[in-house]
């Protein structure tokens, strides 16, 4: 949730209802074009800036997968759906990559509602990790603000249990960038929640691609 007040998003479209429909449609298309370009530029800048960090994270993840590690992903709202998408990408890769053990911690509504109802929403991910996680597992959390309390709690438990912790954040990285419990924090530097999520998706796909490349040859294991 952000407090973007943007005159609403489209300053070029005035509030005059008498204007004709074609003008409205043209203005909408122009605005969509400009936002699409911003999204593509942010993705490209982010991938460029994080190139070396991505490679390091991918190597460490590949090493953990090779040692039997599993990936747990988490996030809230739209980021929860991105976390689900990434777990599916690792576990059932399209076009024939190596399937890797990966599960989203938002998949089970019974567990999420049980923990929220009985204890509180801040523990929905950390309590699941207490049950499942062990070295050499990996936890990856998505948050546009970088401040989600339930992700920070999950990272803190995970770090204590010897997991590799990967945070995917936006803005300036928020609490995730500042936390010692987050081994690697990959930050999409933007202040638009939507543009951040679009670039985070590309970032996660690039990470998956590099993990696949760094996995040891199974025949040599």
């Amino acid at each position, binding site marked *: 949730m952000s407090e973007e007040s943007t005159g609403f998003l489209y300053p070029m479209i005035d509030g005059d209802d008498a204007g004709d429909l074609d003008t409205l449609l043209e203005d909408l298309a122009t605005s969509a074009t400009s936002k699409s370009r911003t999204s593509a530029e942010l*993705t490209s800048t982010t991938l460029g800036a994080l190139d070396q960090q991505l490679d390091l994270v991918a190597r460490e993840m590949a090493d953990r997968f090779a040692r039997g590690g599993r990936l747990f992903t988490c996030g809230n709202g739209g980021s929860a759906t991105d976390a689900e998408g990434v777990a599916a990408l690792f576990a059932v890769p399209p076009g024939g990559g190596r399937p890797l053990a990966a599960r989203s911690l938002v998949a089970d509504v019974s567990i999420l509602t049980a923990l929220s109802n009985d204890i509180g929403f801040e523990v929905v991910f950390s309590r699941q990790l207490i049950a499942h996680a062990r070295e050499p597992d990996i936890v990856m959390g998505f948050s546009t603000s970088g401040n989600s309390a339930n992700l920070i709690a999950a990272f803190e438990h995970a770090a204590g249990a010897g997991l590799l912790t990967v945070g995917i954040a936006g803005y300036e990285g928020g609490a995730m960038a500042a936390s010692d419990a987050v081994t690697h924090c990959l930050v999409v530097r933007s202040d638009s929640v939507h543009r951040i999520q679009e670039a985070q998706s590309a970032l996660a796909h690039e990470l998956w691609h590099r993990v696949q490349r760094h996995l040891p040859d199974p025949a040599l294991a």
Partner: protein
Amino acid sequence: MNGDEITTAAERELGELTRDLATTSLAMARRFRAGATLWCVSPTWPHHARHVAVEFVHPVIVGKPALSALIGPAEEPIAGLRASMTRGDLVLAIGDGHDVVTADLMRRAHAWGVETIWIGAGPRPPAGAADHVLWLDDAPGTAAVDGRFILLYHLLWELTHVCLEHRGRLREPAPVCEGEVCITCSDDGQLAEVVSVRDGEAQVRTAEGPRIVDITLVDRAATNDLVLVHAGSAIARVSDEVPA
């Protein structure tokens, strides 16, 4: 392909897409203002359907109104949506052009009076498969596609809200009748889905609402069959086959 050609193709795709996004958003705003629910479905990528629903129900910009959006059931989506969707609703599906569940859903939605939006990538579905087709040329599953799907539905959300703030432009144009035959007012090959069958007649759902039609001209018609209706009679059953 050299760099200039790649840029030109990308620019052409972007130009077409943004025009489609504009008209789709206007149509969505009109339906929402009339009380529609947006049904979100993705048999292949269910997380995308969930993402669309959360955008509309819980807006990222404080102060924007929550709009009614729900995800379709994961198991037997068509059966569940048939029971839940009402005339005037919207359905948005995300799936590639070979997604047979989406193709069938889009077609049946026409008979339910539901406006259809299909977001996808790779080879396109057949022309007319949905009212609004928002398509990326990249192959599905390639790295960039997922983020661009997210971009497309983010833009749909943003543009729909812009349209909702321009109330005067949301009035639907009245249907124009030209010549002696008007498709809207007559029933020239109207698509219908059979609800129940009894004594040579069937209760059917159509875009204009429920009606009773004669089914003696088709050899057999069962519940959930799609039929073409003309002048009060079912004249043909619509094939279940979906072109690949």
